[in-house]
């Protein structure tokens, strides 16, 4: 039995949420809630075991149904995939616990549970996909369930945002699919392992990669294609916002990384890495300044996501040259994705607690929050530490590696961007956290009437995620090691 589970792990982690989703739909809210919780709890040991198995045995290849490529579907689990699965599963658990309190058993939100479980399963399938067509399918599944979740409340602004989000998502997917078609036509395979050997830098190859990159950049909301993100992420119900910012955008980014670092040799496409890096740097500055200008908490957090996405893209110029700098950049980028997932979901959940309790999220009305809701104020502050990249936090470890990679590869200017970005983040974090320690707003209007503390599960789930992002800063070494397991050849310098 144990042995069977160990062997089937890659399929099992995906199957649990995919089984729970239709059950939750069929059985309705009353059973949907416990089903989601059981599914979330059941996923934890599976994800941990999978990560342990990968770190012990190296990359795994799992043939679904025993068919094998090129006919069947292959799941591939290497270090980075295992990390993303682990992060999704941990964030997923706390978001689920939070959502139990947030949505309660109100019938209006009955579709949350099946949609969320479906999104969860699709994300895991995406991270474990071994070929670029399956990646497309998973990407669509993720996008469609995410769009539906954004519009869940059926409020006007939410529907408008969801529509805008859907258009961007579809456009992005189409670009990506075109690229996949070109590649399949030219090189006769969609399997990434095969493509790695056969892909050529010719017109078709370049066109295909360009199309896919544009599509994925749009879906990841890299500046200047971020326009759809702030309204979508801030108007969604808060547990959904958390998942979108923490996990969903990482899905398309993950594919981009796979394409460039794993399949194509970025050195053969001079300029692309630099462009992505420059856009990333611009995103950091632009997103942070926009965040600073926001008057609503959830908008601020959403723009913070625009900024933090920028760091992920600094990985490209740093990894291109290979050598030890590439390894550091690789660890830094993936680690940043992981720690940002924890901290950003914590922030959105905390913002959600505020919104649910006080009926508004105007920053000027949140003075003295550390008195009224100490756990939530603390959550926001601790998550802010990761945003700023200060120790002890996962964000710090990630930035350490990025700064290191910059100096190592002689591109010190990216280090300046990383440090300056941390300071800009401090500006918007303290814009919010400072008043938390200040006085209550003088004129509390009707909307500020405080109905009393939120359920402890909500505050506790958010705080746990924030603490998790701090723990990564001290006990993060095992995760750093896992990221390097069966890493792409460009990163390790070893051809597999």
């Amino acid at each position, binding site marked *: 039995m144990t042995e069977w589970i160990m062997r089937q792990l890659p399929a099992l982690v995906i199957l649990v949420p995919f089984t729970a989703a239709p059950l939750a739909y069929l059985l309705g809210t009353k059973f949907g809630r416990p089903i989601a919780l059981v599914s979330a709890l059941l996923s934890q040991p599976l994800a941990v075991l999978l990560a342990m198995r990968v770190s012990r045995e190296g990359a795994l290849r799992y043939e679904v149904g025993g068919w094998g490529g090129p006919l069947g579907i292959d799941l591939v689990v290497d270090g980075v995939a295992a990390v993303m699965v682990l992060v999704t599963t941990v964030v997923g658990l706390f978001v689920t616990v939070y959502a139990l309190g947030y949505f309660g058993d109100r019938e209006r939100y009955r579709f949350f549970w099946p949609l969320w479980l479906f999104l969860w399963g699709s994300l895991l399938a995406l991270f474990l996909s071994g070929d670029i067509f399956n990646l497309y399918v998973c990407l669509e599944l993720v996008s469609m369930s995410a769009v539906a979740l954004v519009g869940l409340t059926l409020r006007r602004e939410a529907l408008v945002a969801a529509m805008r989000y859907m258009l961007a998502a579809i456009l992005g997917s189409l670009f990506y699919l075109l690229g996949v078609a070109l590649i399949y036509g030219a090189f006769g395979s969609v399997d990434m392992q095969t493509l790695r050997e056969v892909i050529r830098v010719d017109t078709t190859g370049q066109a295909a990669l360009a199309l896919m990159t544009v599509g994925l950049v749009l879906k990841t909301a890299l500046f200047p294609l971020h326009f759809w993100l702030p309204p979508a992420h801030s108007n969604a119900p808060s547990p959904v916002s958390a998942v979108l910012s923490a996990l969903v955008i990482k899905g398309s980014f993950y594919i981009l990384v796979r394409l460039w670092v794993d399949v194509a040799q970025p050195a053969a496409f001079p300029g692309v890495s630099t462009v992505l890096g420059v856009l990333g740097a611009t995103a950091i500055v632009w997103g942070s300044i926009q965040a600073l200008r926001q008057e609503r908490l959830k908008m601020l957090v959403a723009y913070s996501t625009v900024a933090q996405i920028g760091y992920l893209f600094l990985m490209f110029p740093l990894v291109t040259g290979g050598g030890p700098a590439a390894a550091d950049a690789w660890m830094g980028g993936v680690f940043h994705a992981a720690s940002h997932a924890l901290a950003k979901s914590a922030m959105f959940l905390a913002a959600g607690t505020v919104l649910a309790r006080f009926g508004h999220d105007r920053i000027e009305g949140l003075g003295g929050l550390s008195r009224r809701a100490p756990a939530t104020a603390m959550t926001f502050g601790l998550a802010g530490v990761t945003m700023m990249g200060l*120790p002890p936090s996962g964000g710090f470890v990630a930035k350490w590696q990025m*700064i290191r990679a910059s100096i190592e590869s002689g591109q010190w200017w990216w280090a300046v961007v990383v440090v300056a970005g941390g300071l800009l983040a401090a500006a918007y974090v303290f814009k919010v956290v400072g008043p938390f*320690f200040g006085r209550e707003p003088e004129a509390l209007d009707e909307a500020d009437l405080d109905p009393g503390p939120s359920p402890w599960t909500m505050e506790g789930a958010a705080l746990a995620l924030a603490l998790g992002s701090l723990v990564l800063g001290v006990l993060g070494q095992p995760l750093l090691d896992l990221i390097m397991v069966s890493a792409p050849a460009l990163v390790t310098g070893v051809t597999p």
Partner: protein
Amino acid sequence: MTWETTALVGAVGAPFLTAVLIFVLGEHRDAARSRINLAGAALTVVAVVAAAVAARAGAPDAYPSAGIALLDIGFSLRADMLGVLFAVVAGVLWLITTVYAIGYMSHASDRARFFGFFSVCVGSAIGIALSANLLTFFVFYEVLTLATYPLVIHSGTPAALKGGRTYLTYALPAGGALAAGVVWLNLIAGPVEFAAGGSLDPALASTHPGALIAIFALLMLGVGVKAALFPLHGWLPAAMVAPAPVSSLLHAVAVVKAGVFGIARIVLEVYGPLGHELGVTQVLAALAGFTIIFGSVRALAQDDFKKRLAYSTVAQLSYITLGVALASPIAIAGGIAHLAHHAAMKITMFFTAGAVAEEVKAYRVSEFDGLGRRMPLTMTAFSLAAIGIVGVPPVAGFTSKWLLGVGGVDAGTGWVVAVLGISSVLNAAYFFPIIHRAWFRTPKPEWAHGPAAGKPEGDMRMIVPLVITAAIGLAMGVFAGADLSPASWAQTIAGWEFPW
């Protein structure tokens, strides 16, 4: 774990554990919180003293250590002679300050938050003291930066928030510079542990001179803010909006000394002889000399009592910086000893500021006429500390000034003696008027007959601590020759720091 490593980890862990318990306990359980806080502080004292015993037994190179893997350096603690000196100072003064703070804050709001973050600050300071390498140091250093912020803005007034902003404007960019410096150094020199006499390979001075100078500048930019080195000192006077216990323990001891302690670690135990070879420590010494004069001159002009003390701190901190930057074991000993000496004396003065403000609502030096009658114990303690800072024997300040002066001559930098002389005159010029006012001016009518009959001169939870710290300051001077005095301890360390 052996008892040595238990003490080491306990010394850092106990304050953090105390903080967690205080946060969990919440706002309304005052008695339980006070008990936990005192117990935590007492436990910390036991742990730091045990760590000191272990360090002394293991000196000079078999120190107890503990750590985990993190990045390529490791997150590791070590109880060495230099570290435990700072840790003991911070731990013992924390216990005393806790008593004081329980009295001072008894009518204030948000006490759970206050005492919680206070404990985090102390834990970080002790962590800074006991860090084995620059990565660990940096981690605790930034925790200290962040945890101090809620304390600076504790009252929540616009003025407090402004002071907090000023503090962050200095502290956060400094953290960025420090991070860049540490990463860069780590790339050039590999993972370096602090080691007496310097840990950098001497060959680096010829292979990477430019980079090493730039890294030194970045590192000093990072630690110089907390050390209030000119021109990075501006946040300290602004941070005086904080409640008195914060000014006392953090802005006279834990936070600012974390800065100068960082300078000592980097100059002595990372760069070592390379610093002098590259010429960077000479620049640092000159800057410290200037800061001494500058801070003292600015202190003269302050009527606000706490601001005068703050500028005095700016100047006094640079004594320590100056000492470690000079190429003489005697000067190094003076600098390190001053770390402990100044702590005891300055905390007494800030305790005084808080006690006076609470009891008679006097905030300005010009309001102190005849205060000695009204609060005799308090003003006696203050006067003792003040003459100590000026450098009158036998109070502790004299010992460190003497060592610094002799060391200055020993290092061939005679200007140091002139700086110390001018500084002492200026110290007298800004402290003696206070003593004069308190004891020799005609008091207000209601102060003339002392405290109300049968009543103490103030909350004894505040008066007793400041009397104790004044006594410690005196004892450190009188018994400077004793085996376990900070001065002797510092001389032992200096012998290893300067073997070249």
